[in-house]
């Protein structure tokens, strides 16, 4: 066997390598954020955030995109949250382990792996054409909602599992039915955890482009959306359009950076909030 010194030296070198790999990831996040922030900050003004796009989107603001993204992601969660919680309650509280539950879980994990562009195709064929919704806020939100479902189910299940058994036993012990126990005791206790998952789902829905390209978002709308059947503009799609097929791509670079910065701030802000919330919750549960 080699001497202990050489073994320890090898360890030192390898650990250094592992450490640099981990730091490289952190660095990557910072570099991306730095470039977007440094070049996007100058584009952002009160007018940029609150005005309509002007002159074929080479000037003006991104208000319709902000409103569109807000509508799409909130709509998605409004659909996915009730369905997701109900699924998680069924899987965690009612269902007996067996083939059926395995099958449902198999479907959920596969749904989570479906490429975003395939959700887009599905939304186009099912919501837009088959259900006659056309390209609309509603169709886009439902497509995003279907995509968010596995995230919400996963987070809700985890939250339900973290509720101690004793809560349920105490509730049943004083004569509550299983439904009352779930409705009044288990779900309220799991709510903060579910909320964390919901924020994550919301931020993911806000950042997605491919599912809304054919179902909800359009190149340009002359006015703000009037109903859930309107076509909308959205931040991610706006970035894509300006960067690849806008009028005068080079000249509108600052607007592209600005829009990216708004989107990143929105998504990372929500994520950071969810992460902090979750860590606080974990601490509370340990006590």
């Amino acid at each position, binding site marked *: 066997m080699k001497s202990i010194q050489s073994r320890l030296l090898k360890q030192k070198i390898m650990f250094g390598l592992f450490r640099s790999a*981990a730091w490289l990831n952190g660095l990557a996040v910072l570099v991306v954020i730095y470039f977007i922030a440094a070049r996007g900050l100058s584009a952002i003004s009160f007018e940029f955030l609150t005005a309509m796009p002007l002159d074929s989107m080479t000037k003006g603001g991104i208000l319709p995109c902000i409103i569109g993204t807000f509508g799409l992601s909130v709509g998605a969660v409004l659909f996915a949250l009730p369905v997701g919680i109900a699924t998680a309650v069924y899987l965690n509280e009612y269902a007996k382990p067996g083939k059926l539950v395995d099958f449902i879980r198999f479907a959920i*994990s596969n749904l989570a792996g479906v490429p975003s562009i395939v959700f887009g195709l599905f939304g186009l064929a099912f919501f837009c054409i088959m259900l006659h919704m056309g390209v609309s806020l509603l169709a886009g939100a439902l497509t995003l909602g279907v995509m968010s479902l596995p995230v919400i189910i996963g987070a809700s299940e985890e939250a339900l599992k973290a509720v101690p058994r004793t809560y349920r036993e105490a509730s049943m012990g004083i004569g509550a039915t299983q439904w009352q126990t779930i409705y009044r005791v288990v779900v309220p206790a799991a709510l903060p955890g579910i909320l964390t998952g919901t924020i994550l789902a919301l931020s993911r829905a806000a950042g997605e482009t491919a599912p809304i390209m054919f179902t909800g978002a359009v190149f340009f709308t002359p006015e703000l959306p009037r109903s859930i059947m309107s076509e909308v503009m959205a931040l991610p799609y706006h970035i894509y359009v300006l960067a690849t097929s806008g009028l005068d791509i080079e000249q509108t670079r600052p607007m592209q950076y600005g829009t990216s910065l708004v989107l990143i701030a929105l998504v990372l802000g929500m994520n950071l909030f969810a992460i902090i919330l979750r860590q606080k919750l974990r601490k509370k549960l340990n006590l």
Partner: protein
Amino acid sequence: MTAFVSVTILGLIMIFLIKEGLPIFSHVSVKEFIFGKFWYPTDDPPAYGIFPLIVGTFSVTLLSTVISVPLGVMSAIYIAEIARERLAAIAKPMVELLASIPSVVVGFFGMVVVSPFLQDTFDIPSGLNLFNAALMLAFMAVPTICSVTEDALRSVPKSLREGSLALGATHLETIARITVPAAVSGISTAVILGMSRAVGETMVVLMVAGGAAMSPSSIFDPVRPMPASIAAEMGEAPFGAEHYNALFATGVVLFLFTLVFNVCAARIARRYKR
């Protein structure tokens, strides 16, 4: 009842992809579609061969895996086995934040920052190519690989490590010969999930892969992976036309690829649980 919504949706996705994709096979055979070397959907006569798109998807995925797997696994080892707890508590959310950067922003970054850099450094005609796309995809796959690997490492019983250390092995030897082998099925799941993410990712390959529907001969050649083709062309393909059907059929192929990846990952994960 509601629990079946997920099952129903997965079923509906399959039904609608197939329903809209199937008509193309009255124009070309399945074999011609999958192995046909030419993708000229708007020419007259059109050619619907998605082989170059499949090659595009696989070349980008493979190259990104080569970059993301060592990076993701090594980071996970560092976070789970080496770093002090407080440092790990900061590093983990960092990785999650990396995962949450929207794909369109990663694509945009690849276009405006990485592409000119590659163009100047390697003196190539365009920085929008296979290598750039693979690099950006690796970015997006690392968090998946890292967090799944970390979970796998953390579930290795402490007694195994202690036994190895007590026999006189160094910390590194314990990691390399005991912990990592014990977690190998979890790590394989992580790799497959990371690859599955790269196969299906759309915006990055749409914006930075260069878009040429041909088989690449070098890593600096442009490619057109399947998701990019669907996303770029669906806007122009009229509803119900041959081109429209061909894109849905491409969606079916893409869906099947990711399904295979996910089923493999689930299989390995289940065996691992036992």
